[in-house]
């Protein structure tokens, strides 16, 4: 289908990665390996859901990784205080929600450019995370059994949650008035306003939603590793890259969750395979950076015949 041409192109690229893997080291493709490596993907995936909405409105959120760190530390502090698991998780989510809401209100109600807001909160949230951790526990907290069972138990809670949120976000974007409003804002905020679309409200909620997702991602991370200020370090680069590779336009107005999922998958598989086969962390960086630029170039020259069409 022509509408999904770019998504097919991404699928093709993922196929290429798999093909290269099949030639160089087929073990990488075994079900077991893929399943095990997939534990890395959920946090990235969760964050991209919110980021897709944000970028569709021509916004950006650089602070997701830092917010995730802050959430993880607040989770750790609660566990340190021996609070019940559900309360710890709640505190983590509330932290994320608050961080997102701060971004959201500055962007939506104060009308500060999102790049400026989140550039500032990027440093601020991480600073608070590090400050909190070093001033109180001074060490990462090993996740409690309760939290661990959320992520590492037999029941795949995080993947299921991710799947549910993906469906929900996709429906929101494709099938609701709010979603249509987000696209309208991304293309032309002024006209959207004149059409009676509640711009401030929508913007506020998508940044807040992104913050909430950072909280969820922090729970997942802390369960896998530990509750630490390091959580989510530089993940924002991957999140933005995945969303953009997935075909969402950084200029706003264009993008789909399906593309984002493929973008996440492409980044994930590429990174994992380059790490797996060549064992050189630097090379991975070079490959991912190049992939990002090439994907956007590809989108421009292969799929956008007319720069105006979306």
């Amino acid at each position, binding site marked *: 289908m022509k509408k999904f041409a770019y998504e097919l192109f991404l699928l093709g690229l993922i196929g290429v990665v798999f093909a290269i893997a099949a030639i160089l080291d087929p073990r990488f493709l075994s079900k077991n390996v893929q399943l095990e490596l997939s534990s890395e993907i959920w946090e990235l995936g969760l964050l991209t859901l919110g980021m897709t909405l944000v970028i569709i409105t021509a916004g*950006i959120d650089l602070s997701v990784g830092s917010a995730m760190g802050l959430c993880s530390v607040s989770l750790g502090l609660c566990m340190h205080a021996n609070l019940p698991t559900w309360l710890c998780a709640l505190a983590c989510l509330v932290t994320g929600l608050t961080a997102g809401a701060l971004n959201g209100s*500055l962007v939506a109600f*104060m*009308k*500060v*450019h999102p*790049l*400026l*807001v989140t*550039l*500032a*909160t*990027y*440093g*601020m*949230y*991480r*600073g*608070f995370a*590090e*400050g909190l951790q*070093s*001033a109180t526990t001074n060490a990462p907290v090993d996740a409690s059994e309760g939290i661990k069972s959320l992520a590492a138990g037999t029941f795949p809670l995080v993947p299921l949650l991710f799947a549910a949120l993906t469906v929900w976000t996709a429906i929101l974007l494709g099938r609701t008035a709010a979603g249509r409003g987000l696209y309208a804002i991304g293309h032309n905020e*002024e006209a959207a*306003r004149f059409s009676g679309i509640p711009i401030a409200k929508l913007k506020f909620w998508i940044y807040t939603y992104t913050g909430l997702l950072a909280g969820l991602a922090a729970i997942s991370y802390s369960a896998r590793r530990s509750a630490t200020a390091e959580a989510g370090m530089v993940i924002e*680069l991957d999140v*933005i*890259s995945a969303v*953009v590779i997935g075909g969402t*336009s*950084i*200029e706003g107005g264009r993008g789909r969750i399906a593309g984002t999922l493929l973008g996440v998958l492409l980044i994930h598989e590429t990174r994992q395979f380059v790490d797996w086969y060549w064992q*050189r*962390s*630097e*090379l*991975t*960086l*070079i*490959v*991912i*950076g*190049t*992939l*990002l*630029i090439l994907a*956007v*170039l590809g989108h*421009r020259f292969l799929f956008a015949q007319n*720069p105006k069409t979306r």
Partner: protein
Amino acid sequence: MKYRREASLLILVAVLSLLATLFDGSFVRDNTLDILINSIPTMIISCGVMLVIITGEIDISVGSLLGLLAAILALLCSTVSPGLGIHPYLAIPIVLTIGTLIGLGTGCLVVYGRVPSIIATLGLLIALDGAQDWLMGGGDIKHFPQQLRNLGTGTKLPINLIFTILVVVATGLLCRKTALGRRIYAVGSNRSAARLAGISEAKIKLFVFALTGLLTAMAATLWVAKLGNVSTSTGAGLELKVVTCVVVGGIAIRGGRGRLLGVVLAVILITMIRTVLNFMDLGSEAVKWQRAIEGVMILVAVTSDHFSQRQQSGGSS
């Protein structure tokens, strides 16, 4: 008021100096020169990034680029293996050329590839970081010839500061006194109108990106000259600091508006925050919050302006 932003930045600088003076009477006398010298890399690169943002684009690859160029310079100059021991006066032009070419390449991606600049430079931010680590291989590179170190420390004259002042003055002249400068603003202000006025948007953008590359190479040179050490973390995070300085300095992120003076003040302000905090008796607990405090200050700087601007324009869209 036309110089509103500059005035408020100046007041902030004054307030911070005063605050630090409360803790140490000779703060201003002892630290002015050092703060200026410490601000050099940010200052030089901000001049370039400012022009890029004025044209309505952005460059967030400068941190990684500085790291890569510093690594190249180090490998060329270092007198100890794996350094090649090339004379600095030969090596520096090479590095400046490489920097300019990479900047030009970025420009081409943006202008001819029509990749949005934030994405193009994000890709480069990641890829050049990897390239730097790749190139450095083992560990820190030290042992630079004295001619190079002299640019950063050696003699009584702060050559690097004088050089930076020259760069700032030249940028100021470019902005205000040359046709090119006005055209940079014109492109950022209204690109289709600029096209109709016969201005080549492509050339202007290529120029500002290439210039940013060149200035980043200069900053890399002075960085190596001053610190005498290049590591794989050299330059990391600098791009965010530079963009912060540029926007706090009053350059509109959408392009077309803002003055160099504001940026210069913002660079000094943001560089001195660290020193001022160092001079305040924060105590061993509070010092752990230093990064958070810096973050809050930047958030305040970035948003406070929007409050005052909104009051000024009366809230209409």
